[in-house]
């Protein structure tokens, strides 16, 4: 599902990320661990095609993301990858439903309100569909972010520090949501974090 070969990323004359080789099978849930500045977010950006590495290759679902032209990389990311970001959650000026519709449209799909309702109901936030995204609570926004990541049934879900800002109770809930919904749509889950509270939940780990 995910294959990394000889990956290196330099920034301002120094190497900020180096992953000689790493593979993740379809449906696996893996943790990328490391202190702040160790290159976790850079790794996710490279996998998502948001950054071009200095050397090496990344293959996702058989497609070598690092060799795709920018426009195809954007389209591939929209269709096959779901992202959950630490604080960069939602477009606040529109409704929760519109946030999910936006993800569907940018993936080149028809708006599918039935799928949106199904995902929101699965996350227990069906009543928030019409709410303005900028006016919901942090916990609710976290769920909406997960809903948006899975709404297009991606092959790979990348989560960047999804729990570091949460207290213990909410941390456990957020992680459970991610694991449960990644499994529900058959996606591979990659969580980048420096939060040691969740390391035991993952059998596979990559230490940076």
């Amino acid at each position, binding site marked *: 599902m995910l294959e990394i070969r000889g990956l290196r990323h330099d920034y301002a004359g120094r190497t900020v990320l180096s992953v000689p080789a790493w593979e993740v099978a379809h449906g696996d849930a893996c943790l990328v661990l490391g202190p702040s500045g160790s290159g976790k*977010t*850079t790794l996710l*950006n490279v996998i*998502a095609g*948001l*950054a071009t590495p200095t050397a090496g290759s990344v293959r996702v679902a058989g497609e070598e993301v690092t060799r795709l032209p*920018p*426009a195809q990389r*954007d*389209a591939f*990311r*929209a*269709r096959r990858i779901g*992202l959950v*970001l*630490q*604080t*960069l*959650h*939602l*477009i*606040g*000026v*529109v409704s929760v439903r*519109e946030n999910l*519709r*936006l*993800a569907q*449209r*940018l*993936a080149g799909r028809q708006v599918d309100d039935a799928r949106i309702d199904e995902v929101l109901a699965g996350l227990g936030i069906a009543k928030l569909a019409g709410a303005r995204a900028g006016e919901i609570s942090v916990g609710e926004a976290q769920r909406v972010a997960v809903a*948006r990541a899975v709404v297009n049934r991606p092959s790979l879900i990348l989560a*960047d520090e999804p729990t570091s800002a949460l207290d213990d109770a909410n941390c456990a809930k957020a992680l459970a949501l991610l694991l449960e919904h990644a499994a529900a749509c058959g996606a591979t889950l990659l969580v980048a974090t420096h939060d040691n509270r969740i390391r035991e939940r993952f059998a596979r780990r990559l230490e940076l």
Partner: protein
Amino acid sequence: MRIARLAFAYLASRPLLTALNASMLALGVATIAFLLLVTHQAEERLTRDAKPVDLVIGAKGSPVQLILSTVFHADIPTGNIGVEEARAAVANPMVASATPVALGDSFRGHRIVGTDASFLDLYGAKLARGALFADEMQAVIGSEVARRHGLAVGATITGSHGLAQAGPAHDEHPYVVSGLLAPTGTVIDRLVVTSVESVWHVHEHHPAARPEITALLVRYSTPLAAAMLPRSINATTAMQAASPAYESARLLDLIGVGVDTLQWFAIVLMASAALSLFIALTSALQERRYDLALLRTLGASPASLAALTLAEGVTLLVTGVILGLALGHGAAHALGLRLAGAGSWPITGLTWAPGEAVLAVAVLAIGALTCLVPAIQAYFSDPASLLAKR
């Protein structure tokens, strides 16, 4: 959700700033649109009303005043001239026609013009109903006079002395409406036309009443006359000759100074609006850089982000231009209604001035260029570095 809807949502999320930017732009556009409409219609009217007359011969005084009073019927005359003296001055083969004009009275703000049948020919006026004045104290009335006062053939009207409504009424000398003129789109639509003899008859008791007229409206038979006749009359008689084309051009030049000043004011207003739009978009871009990064993570291309920023600016621009044109036309129409109430210049907002399309395109083009800088910034925004910093 499409880019345009998202742009609209961003604008709607900052209603005050959006309204301020659109209003500033609208005020600039409205001012210029208003000036274009009014000056275009004024020029059109001056040209249309002046066109049939090549030269006006009247009493000495201001030539602009002579033209305004006898051609545009918008000022008091410079005085009277003797009929015989005037006829002698135009007894010249270079003169195709000379139409007498005797002014002095008005009917509810509409000038009563003592003249002959050739006056109607000057403006291409035809009778819609009734007949031309055949006897003294008969009059034909312009279409606007008939419409505004509900007059029909056979109606009786009474003139007031002077050219304002407040003058003493000539109750003892009523006119009978013998005919109604069809609309011409010229000044004659707003006039009451009678014979010169009727005007003399009304003023028989007046000490100054002598066989005098206010002016002669002359048409040349040859263009050569323009070079010779005015000079000859001005040099050899006690009268003055003035060219409507020349004097109305001079008048427009005088008006033009004020119009130019107002246009510069409007341009400064629009430049401020463009600057404000630029600042608003740039600061919105800064506030929204994480939203843009998020859109990139969802698969939006750099071009989509530029389009989003551009769409936001263009929505504001189009709103401002539409609002501005509506305001400009509304103001011109309101002015037209006010002036119509005073029986004066017919100005309407329900028409387009030729420069308005250029105005709209220029504002949209300059505004779009203003939006281009933030749009380019959005295009080159780097989501990866932004995400890595968080």
